[in-house]
């Protein structure tokens, strides 16, 4: 196991360091401790970690880290650990490490700023890793994972060793989880990574994890710390772990990180030989560390000694321990119980501490000592190297030892002491660092940094070398503060690496942050990344880089946004606090989460929850009433559910009158008040009725509410209903629909459902026993929410995540109250803060979302857009099948009327000659005056009218013929001066009558003085003489009722090359919702007398897209009575192309019957629609003059297997002399249809009305059977 671990562990070590992060050393120590718990081996590994840590932050860091990290970690969860650590830290501490560890570190991280972001992220990772650790703790399997993920390598072996200890470690870790998290946080990303590695290692064996941590520690001091903390938690475990880990670390670490491994190896060897000696060794290491350079020397000696033999180690340790004691916290070490450990702490402080811890842990075992030594060595320089060297051997041994050592975990108590010591040492180190002198002390750390800086690879190498050196005494060199400092600086310079940063945060964060947050942070960052790079699994790299990127990419705009978000969050936190709730409250937590989402990925220090929490706390404790937060709440609901009572309850006083049996609120009114510094303006509304018959009254109420909403738009809508009404009969649907229709469905977006009478007991369930309150509430909430969703008609609302939040309300005066006088629900909740929190949350969230980029709120119409993607073939088909007139050359352009539709010839040629003079031949007719008419008797009058009508008809015919003749003359090329010559001679094809001549809009009369509101100015038609015919489009049903002009229509017809008539017409309409364009253009050419071809191009809106339609059509008059046309169209709609073909035939049968048939198909993407139309027109005998005409149309459309048949009948008849009836009827195969009867009459009005009655009734009944039935009931 050991051996296995060792290799991976190295890799993992960095990781582990990450976990321990801030206190990479500590982490290592922690790991070591863990290892110690399990086995001595583990311890060693952890030791190695420590060593690394020491190197990094140096022993002090480690110590501190351990503590600090723990503490940092604790920031949140690790509190317990921190506490333990903290004391130590406190001791040490002074230096910010311990005491502040958690918070301080964090703060420091924040100070780092950009780096902080990275750090935070790392933290996140760290936490994750922590989790892993936990798992690891549970089983070695985790270790494997961790090892796999992070470093794998030798660490695994270590891990395995650790795994033995894991039980403890796991425990510790678990306890530490929080710690680790804290550590991870502190450590930042790097730490996190390190943590991961460690975790993995830990999984493999905690020790390995520890080692990793340690290794990482340099970079990931935090991790180390975390580990330490974990260890600490166990008890001295951390230190112990450290020791253990050290031992392991030596072995494992060596494995993991070459440096450490090397150390470990020697250590392990030593440890193996003399576990007890190991302890001694650790002490030595510690001393080395404490001394920093000197220590390094000593350590070197110690190490060497260790390497050489346990006795040596012991000696060294003893020496170191003494030194340490003298220097730092011998006491602590003593507390640790083991002198060696103590000494270690003193000397190496972080690393030493680690070592010491390890020692202590191991104390039981020599391993711990060895680990310590290792750590020291590592910290010095080559711990890693040594470790590596040792790794194989050491690890194995260590593992074994560790197994034994695990037992040693008992030493935890001691380890704790070590921690304290470490903490002290860390403090010292920190102080030193702060002073700048720290470097030396840091040297350990530095070395670690160096490692990190050097990058994992380097580190590893270094470690190997160092390890050797250490053994030789190189460790001292490494320790050289100066060198370390330089390395650190370099690292910082490199610092761009998030990983480094994280590391900093972990180890460095404490140390560095304390000392010089920014610089250190950066350096640390640099260092960290490197280590990561070495490790294959490093989480940090990716995370780090991403962070960095995000940081770099932070634009000014984003920053501003983040700042604003931060403000909002602080505000929200203050609100939460004022409500006496915690941020753990599910609603509050959700809001915070969503705020974080809004912030996006770039979370920097600027935007950390903790800082905002602090800020909120500060502001709140200041007690200033500067919370500028106001809330408009609209309260809606059925009558008698307790709307007004709820408002009274919110304010805690009788603000509005309530009545049990009579509607107490008859008008919309506003109730204002201030609650906890929040200005509340609540709009109380009259109750709504649920009966469908009373929705008219509801609409009135809602209209007045709407008026009020214009004045002060509500931030939150509270829909009130009773909890204890238990039906599912959709009783409130009409009411909800009315609300939706009147106030818009958006009203529900910010709505909260408040269920009153919440204290009512749940009804009996199916089993006869009462439902549980929770079930009752859940069911009722569900019913209300679903009703709302149904009323809104928005299926998305059915999504549980989008449903309106539900809050319970109990207004009854005798409602149970808690000690504070708050009303309590049966489930023990106080509802009022919850309700207010919900309301605040909604406003806060909407504020926050308004900050984010104006994203299109999800527009469900887009769905339609999607659907439209498959083109609406039936629509295109009907567009294609429309028969169009071909443009003709206007008369003055010498064009002939190419439209063969016109029946001019038929008419003119047939009847006209004979009847030509009929009218003129008639004897003169003298119209009678009314008075004369009155004198006639019935028969005379009848005869008179007949004659009169006949003559009128003849006269009309005559005029018609004259018109036709004139047209024919035009055709023959006779020049006719047309006032609007540019307009095509458009002859209405079906009636054969001349088309209405377009007349330009008369210029509007402008008012004498300018008034921008006058539509005459806005819609003035300024192109009276243009070639274009431009007209405004009036839509009286548009958005703007004042002036319904919402578009413009431009037409133009011209002759291209004087030969091809063309027309273009464009209509643009734009209202508040959409912009519509409709362009029709066509050009035609004539083939002889009997044919013409037209090509056209149309643009129009189909759904949200523009459809471009190219169409062509050719018409032939193949027989005198028969015309045939064939056409095609190509439509481009979005990405789709639809092609269509059509065939049309027009036959005139006799003089009065016209048959028009057309058929066509449109095809797109393998989807086809087929359609056919058949139309029969029967004209009256005197068609053009009297307008009698009947049309029967049949249409058939088949699309997607759906066959639609439709029949249309349209008839226009003259009834009697002075009336006309137009009937239109339509029916389709879905059995829906319509009948329209229109009668116009200049007499006998009553008869027409009488005739209408039964028709109307029949239609009404057939259409609304339900309604008529309803009426029958009464």
């Amino acid at each position, binding site marked *: 196991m050991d051996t296995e671990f060792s290799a991976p562990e190295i890799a993992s070590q960095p990781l582990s360091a990450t976990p321990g992060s801030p206190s990479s050393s500590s982490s290592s120590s922690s790991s070591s401790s863990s290892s110690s718990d399990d086995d001595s081996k583990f311890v060693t590994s952890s030791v190695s970690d420590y060593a690394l840590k020491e190197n990094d932050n140096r022993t002090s860091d480690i110590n501190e880290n351990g503590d600090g990290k723990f503490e940092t970690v604790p920031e949140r969860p690790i509190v317990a650990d921190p506490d333990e650590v903290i004391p130590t830290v406190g001791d040490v501490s002074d230096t910010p490490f311990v005491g502040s560890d958690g918070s301080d570190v964090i703060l420091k991280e924040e100070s780092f700023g950009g780096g902080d972001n990275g750090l935070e992220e790392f933290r996140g990772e760290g936490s994750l890793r922590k989790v892993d650790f936990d798992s690891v703790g549970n089983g070695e399997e985790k270790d494997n994972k961790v090892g796999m993920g992070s470093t794998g390598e030798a660490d695994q072996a270590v891990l395995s060793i650790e795994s033995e200890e894991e039980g403890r470690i796991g425990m510790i870790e678990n306890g530490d989880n929080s710690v680790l998290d804290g550590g991870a946080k502190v450590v930042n990303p790097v730490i996190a990574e390190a943590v991961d590695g460690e975790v993995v290692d830990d999984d493999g064996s905690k020790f390995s994890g520890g080692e990793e941590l340690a290794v990482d520690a340099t970079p990931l001091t935090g991790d180390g710390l975390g580990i330490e903390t974990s260890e600490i938690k166990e008890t001295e475990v951390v230190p112990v772990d450290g020791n253990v880990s050290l031992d392991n670390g030596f072995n494992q670490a060596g494995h993991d990180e070459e440096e450490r491994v090397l150390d470990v190896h020697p250590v392990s060897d030593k440890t193996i030989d003399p576990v007890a000696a190991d302890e001694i060794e650790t002490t030595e290491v510690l001393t080395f560390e404490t001394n920093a350079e000197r220590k390094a020397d000593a350590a070197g000696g110690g190490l060497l000694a260790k390497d050489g033999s346990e006795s040596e180690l012991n000696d060294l340790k003893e020496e170191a321990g003494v030194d340490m004691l003298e220097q730092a916290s011998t006491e602590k070490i003593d507390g640790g119980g083991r002198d060696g450990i103590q000494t270690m702490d003193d000397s190496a402080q972080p690393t030493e501490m680690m070592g010491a811890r390890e020692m202590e842990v191991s104390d039981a075992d020599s391993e711990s000592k060895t680990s310590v030594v290792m750590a020291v060595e590592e910290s010095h320089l080559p711990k890693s190297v040594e470790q590596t060297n040792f790794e194989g051997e050491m690890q194995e041994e260590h593992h074994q030892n560790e197994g034994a050592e695990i037992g040693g975990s008992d030493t935890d108590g001691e380890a704790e002491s070590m921690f304290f010591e470490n903490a002290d040492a860390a403090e010292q180190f920190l102080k030193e660092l702060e002073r700048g002198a720290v470097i030396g002390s840091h040297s350990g750390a530095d070395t670690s940094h160096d490692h990190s800086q050097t990058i994992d690879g380097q580190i590893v190498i270094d470690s190997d070398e160092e390890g050797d050196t250490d053994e030789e005494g190189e460790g001292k060199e490494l320790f050289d503060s100066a060198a370390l400092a330089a390395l650190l600086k370099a690292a910082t310079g490199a610092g761009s690496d998030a990983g480094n940063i994280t590391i900093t945060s972990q180890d460095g964060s404490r140390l560095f942050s304390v000392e010089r947050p920014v610089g250190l942070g950066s350096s640390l960052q640099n260092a960290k990344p490197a280590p990561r790079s070495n490790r294959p699994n490093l989480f940090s790299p990716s995370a780090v880089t991403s962070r960095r990127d995000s940081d770099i990419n932070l634009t000014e705009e984003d920053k501003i946004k983040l700042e604003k978000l931060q403000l909002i969050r602080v505000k929200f936190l203050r609100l939460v606090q004022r409500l006496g709730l915690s941020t753990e409250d599910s609603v509050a937590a959700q809001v915070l989460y969503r705020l974080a989402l809004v912030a996006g990925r770039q979370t920097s220090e600027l935007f950390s929850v903790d800082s905002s929490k602090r800020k909120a706390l500060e502001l709140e404790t200041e007690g200033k009433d500067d919370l500028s937060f106001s809330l408009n709440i609209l309260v809606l609901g059925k009558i008698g559910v307790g709307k007004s009572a709820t408002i009274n309850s919110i304010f805690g006083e009788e603000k509005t009158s309530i009545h*049990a049996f009579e509607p107490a609120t008859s008008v919309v009114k506003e109730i204002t008040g201030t609650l906890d510094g929040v200005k509340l303006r609540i709009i109380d509304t009259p*109750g709504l009725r649920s009966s469908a*018959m009373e929705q008219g009254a509801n609409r009135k109420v809602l209209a007045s509410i709407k008026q009020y909403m214009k004045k002060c738009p509500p931030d939150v809508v509270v829909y009130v209903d009773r909890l204890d009404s238990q*039906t599912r*009969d959709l*009783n409130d649907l009409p009411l909800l629909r009315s609300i939706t229709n009147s106030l818009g469905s958006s009203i529900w977006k910010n709505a909260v459902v408040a269920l009153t009478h919440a204290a009512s007991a749940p*009804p009996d*369930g199916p089993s006869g026993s009462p439902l549980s309150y929770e079930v009752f509430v859940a069911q009722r909430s569900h019913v209300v929410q679903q009703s709302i969703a149904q009323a809104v008609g928005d299926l998305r609302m059915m999504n549980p995540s989008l449903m309106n939040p539900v809050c319970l309300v109990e207004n009854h005066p005798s409602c149970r109250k808690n000690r504070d006088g708050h009303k309590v629900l049966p489930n023990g909740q106080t509802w009022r803060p919850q309700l207010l929190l919900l309301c605040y949350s909604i406003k806060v969230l909407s504020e926050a979302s308004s900050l984010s980029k104006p994203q299109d709120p999800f527009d469900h119409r887009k769905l339609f857009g999607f659907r439209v993607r498959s083109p609406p073939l039936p629509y295109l088909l009907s567009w294609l099948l429309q028969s169009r007139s071909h443009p003709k050359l206007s008369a003055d352009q010498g064009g002939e009327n190419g439209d063969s539709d016109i029946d001019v010839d038929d008419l003119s040629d047939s009847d006209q000659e004979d009847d030509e003079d009929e009218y003129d031949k008639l004897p003169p007719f003298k119209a009678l005056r009314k008075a004369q008419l009155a004198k006639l008797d019935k028969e005379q009058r009848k005869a008179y009218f007949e004659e009169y009508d006949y003559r009128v008809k003849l006269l009309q015919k005559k005029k018609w013929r004259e018109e036709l003749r004139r047209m024919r003359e035009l055709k023959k090329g006779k020049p006719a001066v047309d006032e609007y010559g540019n307009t095509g001679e458009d002859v209405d094809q079906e009636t054969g009558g001349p088309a209405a001549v377009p007349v330009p809009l008369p210029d509007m009369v402008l008012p004498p003085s300018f008034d921008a509101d006058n539509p005459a100015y806005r819609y003035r038609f300024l192109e009276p003489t243009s070639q274009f015919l431009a007209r405004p489009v009036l839509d009286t049903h548009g958005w703007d009722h004042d002036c319904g002009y919402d578009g413009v229509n431009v037409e133009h017809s011209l002759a291209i090359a004087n030969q091809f008539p063309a027309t273009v017409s464009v209509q643009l309409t734009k209202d508040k919702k959409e912009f519509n364009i409709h362009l029709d253009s066509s050009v035609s050419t004539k083939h002889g007398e009997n044919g013409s071809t037209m090509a056209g191009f149309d643009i129009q809106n189909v759904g949200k897209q523009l459809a471009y339609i190219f169409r062509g059509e050719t018409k032939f008059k193949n027989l005198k009575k028969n015309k045939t046309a064939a056409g095609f169209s190509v439509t481009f709609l979005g990405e789709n192309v639809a092609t269509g073909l059509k065939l049309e035939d027009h036959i005139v049968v006799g003089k009065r019957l016209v048959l028009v048939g057309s058929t066509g198909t449109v095809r797109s993407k393998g989807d086809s629609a087929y359609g056919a139309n058949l139309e029969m027109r029967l004209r009256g005998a005197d068609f053009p003059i009297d307008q009698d005409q009947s049309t029967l149309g049949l249409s058939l459309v088949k699309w997607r297997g759906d066959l639609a048949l439709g029949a249309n009948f349209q008839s226009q008849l003259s009834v009697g002399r002075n009336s006309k009836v137009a009937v239109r009827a339509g029916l389709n195969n879905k059995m829906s249809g319509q009948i329209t009867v229109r009668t116009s009459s200049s007499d006998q009005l009553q008869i027409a009305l009488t005739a209408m009655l039964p028709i109307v009734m029949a239609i009404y009944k057939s259409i609304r059977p339900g309604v008529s*039935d309803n009426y029958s*009931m009464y």
Partner: protein
Amino acid sequence: MQFAVMGTPLPREWVGLQQFPAATQTKLFELLGKLKQKNVNTLTILVMGKGGVGKSSTINSLIGEQVVRVTAFQSEGLRPVMASRSWAGFTLNVIDTPGLVEAGYVNHQALQLIKGFLLNKTIDVLLYVDRLDAYRVDDLDKQIIRAITNSFGKEIWRKSLLVLTHAQLCPPDGLSYDVFSSKRSEGVLKAIRIGARIRKKDFDDSVIPVVLVENSGRCNKNDSDEKILPNDDAWIPNLVKAITSVATNKSQAIVVSKKLVDGSDASEKGKLWIPVILGLQWFVIKWIQGAIKRDIATGNGPI
């Protein structure tokens, strides 16, 4: 009343009667004995009301067994259900009906089903059920009452009693329980009077008794284990007493005949008015024509 149970299988033994607390049983036996004295051997009770007010629960409480399934939050089926129990030659039929409201409208379909179900049955007592703890009477209540009236005639209300469920409550606004319950009863009774279009005088003549009911398992009990209301009344005997008194009052039980069920054909309605309207129109036309003629006579000039 004899034919009320025609065609129905023999009713089951009224086991629930024995489940009542002794005190309740005594009172019930007494009341039922009185009924038998009056030669009433069958009693058919129709229970109507909005959904979710506790109709089924009331029936279960009345019979003392779980004869009808009660599910909070679920609308019952559309079909009425009859539960019959016999005890010593006395048969009690209770007809549970679905809620009469659907989506804000009176559910005429349900009402039609009820009428069909009741065909050839005799209704001795109508229990109109509503909640005591609802604070408002709205138009929907009136519509329901009107629909019931239209289906069974105004007379039904002479054979009815008002049952207010959820009676175990603590009145709001510091009202006393009795004041609250009487106010609430008044409100519902007024809705009945208006909805059924009964003249105030007639309504006052035949008072509709009001019974408060608490069906919940959490209902308080007195020393003799009877379910009691906050005013210490044991409500089950009260309910039975009210039922017996209504059943034996001088008004005739409602026999649901074919004619009553079919009701008046909607398509027949208003047809009477057609000739009248035509006649009126004729007058209007005549008047207009006269006016025109006068106008023509006074005016001059060609047409």
